[in-house]
């Protein structure tokens, strides 16, 4: 057991620090400005050799252990740089369920940032109950015609491609009639509508209306009916703090808050510091367990729940320090409220923990 960096990890950290020092202050770190230039930041990280660290080399990754992603997140936060774009769950979805041909065609562009992606899962009528989705993909010649309404689609307005869930077999049991597609966002029959969040951010999430858009049949990911399995792969990875890379950001906000309060920090801030440190160490333990090949099934729900509590406690600390008069801190607080909803609500996470880990009856 050793919580310190190994020699290789330490060398990587130094190289990254030097690279970040050269770029200090050149990219916005939050709000709409961040989302607008996220693609540019993604490509800069990739070209510097700091993106896709744990992904396969053949698609442009570096095949390093996942702890390198955590080092990256820590150093980004420490340098005041923007966070790492979170794509891991899409890479996992396409990587695990896509054919060799689809993987070769799409993973390199996804990883190097030259092609932008969004995820078309949730619908106005299908939130926690994702399997009730109604967006239809109807076979027509060598492709499918798409009709439906997607919502909470991150960066949909800047996306080139959408990993879309749609119902291909309306007569099959509801979990079995869903298929996944790689859909071009540059075509007629797609209407974008922005979604303004309670923090005022408008460019993070969008709504996408599909009205007769098309997708070639060979851009189905996996076989017909594999959409639900892909969705479970994606949301499972979406629930790991190491994939999201948020924990280092919380530490950064806590330090920023501490610098504003001097010697008498409010109790909320001290508690947020405790929570943030817990999460940092929890991510390290989870990543270490992955070295034994322990699969991340329902345990991801524990990680997500812990992460949510931490983010929302940090949000409360921001409010305690800034009151409602500081717009930046107020927005940090307001933004934190979404954490117990996105990627599966806290209530859904608790259902998963209760049924699949504790073995309680459902």
């Amino acid at each position, binding site marked *: 057991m050793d*919580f310190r960096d190994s020699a290789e990890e330490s060398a990587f950290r130094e190289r990254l620090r030097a690279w970040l020092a050269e770029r200090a202050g050149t990219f916005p770190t939050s709000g709409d400005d961040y989302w607008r230039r996220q693609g540019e930041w993604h490509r800069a990280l990739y070209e510097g050799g700091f993106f896709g660290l744990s992904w396969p080399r053949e698609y442009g990754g570096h095949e390093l252990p996942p*702890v390198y992603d955590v080092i990256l997140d820590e150093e980004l936060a420490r340098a005041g740089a923007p966070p790492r774009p979170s794509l891991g769950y899409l890479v996992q979805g396409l990587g695990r369920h896509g054919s060799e041909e689809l993987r070769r065609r799409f993973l390199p562009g996804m990883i190097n940032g030259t092609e932008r992606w969004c995820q078309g899962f949730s619908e106005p009528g299908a939130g926690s109950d994702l399997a009730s989705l109604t967006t239809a993909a109807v076979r027509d010649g060598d492709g499918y015609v798409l009709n439906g309404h997607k919502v909470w689609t991150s960066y949909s307005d800047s996306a080139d491609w959408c990993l879309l869930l749609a119902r291909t077999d309306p007569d099959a049991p509801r979990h079995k009639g869903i298929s996944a597609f790689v859909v071009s966002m540059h075509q007629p029959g797609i209407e974008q509508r922005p979604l303004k969040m309670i923090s005022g951010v408008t460019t993070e999430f969008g709504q996408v209306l599909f009205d007769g858009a098309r997708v070639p049949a060979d851009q189905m990911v996996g076989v017909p009916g594999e959409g639900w399995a892909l969705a479970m792969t994606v949301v499972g990875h979406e629930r790991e703090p190491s994939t999201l890379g948020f924990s280092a950001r919380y530490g950064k906000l806590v*330090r920023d808050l501490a610098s504003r309060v001097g010697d008498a920090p409010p109790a909320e801030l001290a508690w947020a510091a405790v929570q943030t440190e817990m999460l940092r160490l929890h991510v390290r333990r989870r990543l270490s367990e992955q070295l034994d090949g322990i699969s991340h099934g329902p345990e991801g729900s524990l990680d997500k729940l*812990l992460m949510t509590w931490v983010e929302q406690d940090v949000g409360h600390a921001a409010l305690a320090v800034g009151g409602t008069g500081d717009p930046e801190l107020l927005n940090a607080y307001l933004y934190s409220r979404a954490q117990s909803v996105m990627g599966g609500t806290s*209530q859904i996470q608790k259902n998963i*923990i209760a049924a699949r880990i504790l073995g309680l009856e459902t």
Partner: protein
Amino acid sequence: MDARLTAEQRELRTAAARLAADLGPGSVHDLDEADRVARLEKAVAATGWRTLRSDGASGVEVALVTEEFARGLVDVPFLGPVLADDLRAGGDPWTIAVGAEAVDARGMERALALDGHRVLAGRVGAVVPGADLTRRSAQVVGPLEPVGEITAERAERWRALALVVTCADLLGAARGAHAVACDYAKVRRQYGKTIGSYQAVAHLLAEGLALIEGSVSVLRHAAWAVDELTPAEAIRAARIAKLYCARAARTVCETAVQVHGGIGNTWECVVHVYLRRALASADLFPARLEEIDLGLS
């Protein structure tokens, strides 16, 4: 970076868990069984785990045994003697004194205290009443006498270890209470279904498990830090762990009482034994939010 336990550490944990399961009290009634307590005392003494520190073990091993003993409600001294051994090795097991009170003092004759970096010793006197039904505190008779000095660095590491063993005790108590509550939720039926099938109950237990997992993570680091980081860093890690584990354990134990309903509020139900033990371990070497250094690494 590697936060995994070694194979030896996992074996030690398993052995401690087995001993606690075999000879610890399985019920409130068992607490009064003198024969069992005597057998447990003999078994714990035979393991040599009370001298883990002077035998060269790290904070991680001490924390693992402490956690398993708390999970099994082991009601003979361990935390006290293992901390006393770290101050002054050799001889019969002694426990430690905090202020004028010897803690974890069942059957103990002498207690050691740390004052700055001076080690003091005193005789253990009459039992004083306390919340904990598994460990008892006692008066220290007469003035404490100096018996030696340790370096400032060792004194700081001892304080970090003291915080860490109380964290491990809290985690063990939380895990024990949580397991009892989950078992009960699977058998107790109301409205024709097990109570664990209701989300209102299931979600409390799910939250409890998340708090336990967070405690494991924060404790693992603090236990490692006792010997591997600077004394100041070790203290900082231990304080953070203590604040987290104390809040988590109290919540988990309170949940266990609630899940048991009316029965959980009766003396016969074992959950209050865990809750009481957790309260005592939270009080012993407490950490305060005001002590937290906000310059996070």
